[in-house]
């Protein structure tokens, strides 16, 4: 079954509380903007790892995910 951007959004929200999340994609390539308090105090690598951890095995269904991770403060000041 083809994964939709909404599926990806749900997968992420299942394991990560987000202030804002936006996912676009064509079923093979996805782009996500993720804003979460959980990113506070973490470097970009740790933030991306956190999202991958939340997605777990589902990453195999998601061919390619490009993401922008932001803290609520960064999001407010964008």
């Amino acid at each position, binding site marked *: 079954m083809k994964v939709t951007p909404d599926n990806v959004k749900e997968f992420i929200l299942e394991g990560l509380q987000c202030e804002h999340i936006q996912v676009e994609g064509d079923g093979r*390539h996805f782009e996500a903007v993720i804003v979460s308090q959980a990113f506070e105090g973490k470097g*970009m*690598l740790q933030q*991306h*790892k956190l999202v*991958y951890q939340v997605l777990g095995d589902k*990453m195999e269904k998601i061919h*390619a*995910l*490009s*993401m*922008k991770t932001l803290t609520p403060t960064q999001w407010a000041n964008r």
Partner: protein
Amino acid sequence: MELDEKQIALDHIKQTVTENPIVLYMKGTPQFPQCGFSGRAAQVLKACGVTKYVAVNVLEDAGAWNYLKFYADFPTFPQLYIKGELIGGSDIMLAMYEQGELQKLIAEATAQ
């Protein structure tokens, strides 16, 4: 058996990333990338002025293909390593390049 294969692959990855200052694990080659993100990663390195680095084509390296995700707990390709440390994938590379951070890391790594 499977454990041995994994351990051998992880040892080989460790050796590769510690013996070379800049290593990019990617799908395809910098000249002929086989995935958009890998192509972007190679372009970012080029934009940073990096002329010499080790590019590992994971499509031709079964050990890296199967086990790189366990090495630094990062499940996708491409992956950039500088002085043995995972920097990130193409999103992180591009963001760090735009902030001027990647150029700094690369200059430090290649100065020695």
